[in-house]
């Protein structure tokens, strides 16, 4: 009788363990960490960073859309997400939070990939529809990210203040909003990414906002053009090229 009890006990325990094993999700994941930096440092909202000359600036709002996040493979691409809204409003309130950034995790398929690509902004296909065409809980269902005058989502919002005369008082507000299909850019990075069964791959997408505004000898003249939010503004036509190109070069990708 005791032997029978022991046998059934072992059987039940064995079954339980086998159940646990089979239920365990072994599919691999990709975690993308979006990080906003200014030069070499995490970018903390509302804290001074040196701009150019004697000017310091603070950023108060940073967000952007990322579209068609895709792993590139010789045997086929894998779409991780068609669109994501990346906002640093919460994460970048502290230095620790800024260092961590904003993360999103996606299920992935096992394989060896040789690159990653994504659009900076909302892809033309998705941008052809207004927010009312998306569910209200969809990232494109937010009307605050749509500009009816352009018939476009606002691809990125970069806002803040500048202390232009070095007296420690911010005296100039700047607002840079990008949008419309002509400002959409696709970033492709060639790098080996091995996705193994049951493992997580971490990829850092780093946006250097210092480079968004350009280098010392070729930077966007915020002091004279503090507001840019109209891709149809012929007076600022150059910015409709320069700003998205700067975003393109300001974004780097690191596979952990």
């Amino acid at each position, binding site marked *: 009788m005791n032997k029978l009890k022991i046998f059934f006990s072992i059987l039940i325990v064995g079954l339980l363990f086998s159940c646990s094993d089979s239920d365990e999700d072994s599919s691999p994941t990709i975690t993308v960490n979006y990080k906003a930096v200014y030069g070499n440092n995490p970018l903390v909202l509302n804290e001074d960073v040196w701009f150019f000359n004697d000017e310091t600036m603070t950023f108060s709002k940073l967000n952007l859309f990322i579209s068609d996040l895709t792993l590139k493979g010789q045997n086929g691409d894998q779409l991780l997400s068609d669109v994501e809204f990346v906002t640093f409003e919460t994460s970048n309130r502290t230095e620790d939070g800024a260092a961590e950034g904003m993360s999103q995790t996606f299920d992935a398929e096992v394989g060896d990939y040789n690159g990653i690509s994504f659009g900076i902004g909302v892809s033309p296909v998705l941008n052809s529809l207004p*927010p009312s065409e998306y569910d*209200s809980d969809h990232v494109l269902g937010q*009307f605050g990210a*749509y*500009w*009816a005058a352009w018939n476009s989502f606002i691809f990125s919002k970069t*806002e803040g203040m500048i202390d232009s005369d070095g007296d420690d008082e911010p005296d100039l507000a700047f607002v840079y909003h990008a949008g419309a299909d002509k400002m959409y850019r696709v970033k492709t990075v060639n790098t080996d990414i091995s996705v193994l069964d049951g493992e997580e791959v971490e990829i850092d997408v780093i946006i250097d906002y210092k480079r968004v505004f350009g280098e010392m000898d070729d930077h966007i003249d915020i002091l004279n053009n503090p507001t840019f939010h109209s891709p149809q503004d012929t007076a600022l036509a150059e910015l409709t090229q320069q700003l998205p190109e700067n975003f393109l070069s300001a974004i780097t990708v690191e596979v952990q």
Partner: protein
Amino acid sequence: MNRLILILFISIGAFAGCTSDEIDDKGVDLTNISYDPQPYDVELPDYFPDLYSPSDNPLTYDGVQLGRHLFYDPILSADSTMSCSSCHEPGLAFTDGLATSTGIDGIAGRRSSMSLINIGFFGNKLFWDGRSPSLEHQALQPVEDPIELHETWPNVERKLRSNERYRELFRKAFGIEYSGEITKELAGKAIAQFERILVSTNSRFDRERQGKTFFTSEEQDGFDMFFDDSGSGLPEAECGHCHNFPLFTTFEFFNNGLDSVSSLEDYEDKGLGEVTMYRFDNGKFKAPTLRNIELTAPYMHDGRFETLEEVLDHYATGGHPSPNVDPLVAAAGTRNLSEGQKRSIIAFLRTLTDTSYLQNPDVLSPFN
């Protein structure tokens, strides 16, 4: 043997007592009243977002009717003198026309009553400071607020459970079987349902949008400046960033330069910052909808501006300086809007007036 009889009596007594308590807790049996929930449809233009309802509180005809009764009934206040509608009058786009609202004890609050028009599209962060995560949650707050209805929910529940009309309304709305199942949570759900039908979609702006009418040239100029149409050759007034189409709000929080402070800690009313405890949120308040703005004076969270002209004058100066004034508000101050241009923007704002919702009997008081 005597001991056995004693135990028997105690047991019977306990059973009887238990049964009696259970009946008291359950209250009146309501199962003889029919429960047949029918969806309540709200017609919206195709350029509007979906009307959000949580899965555990779908819009039903009887839910709306219960919420309507609760909204207009002073039963929710401690002295039965005030209801939700006391501060949210239908004819004033569900505001009260006061700078700051006053509760049953005559104590004035520190903020203005917000319009409830199109409130159903606001998913979360309700109130001027965003402290409420849902309409269902928000609807419960004024009852126990000492400067509003100053009542307690246990007391309101007791009043509702003993009221024959409400027993029937709660049964029809939520299918409860006993009056003891009437709770504040169900009351909040019903009020939230009623608030979701307070929809304005038939302003002159909407009719122009639908090709049924035209703007005057003054209104069109106002529209172009409001939405920064650079092709118009008119100055960009930067209004649409916070008051975007079609709801004329982005649901976000801004410091619109109302107060001049040198330190973020100096705001008398810290607004969003009181909720998030993030100092850069101090002085930020929710951008309200501008639909029916003509009816909702005085303006701002503290009702400091009596007229739309005063509001435009404020924005045309770029607001008062402060460490976290919104860059777009500051930018608006550089546009040098002329008096005529400000009048054009106000003319456009008046195209957002719509009182057609008052034609829907479901939004009006059931007690008149």
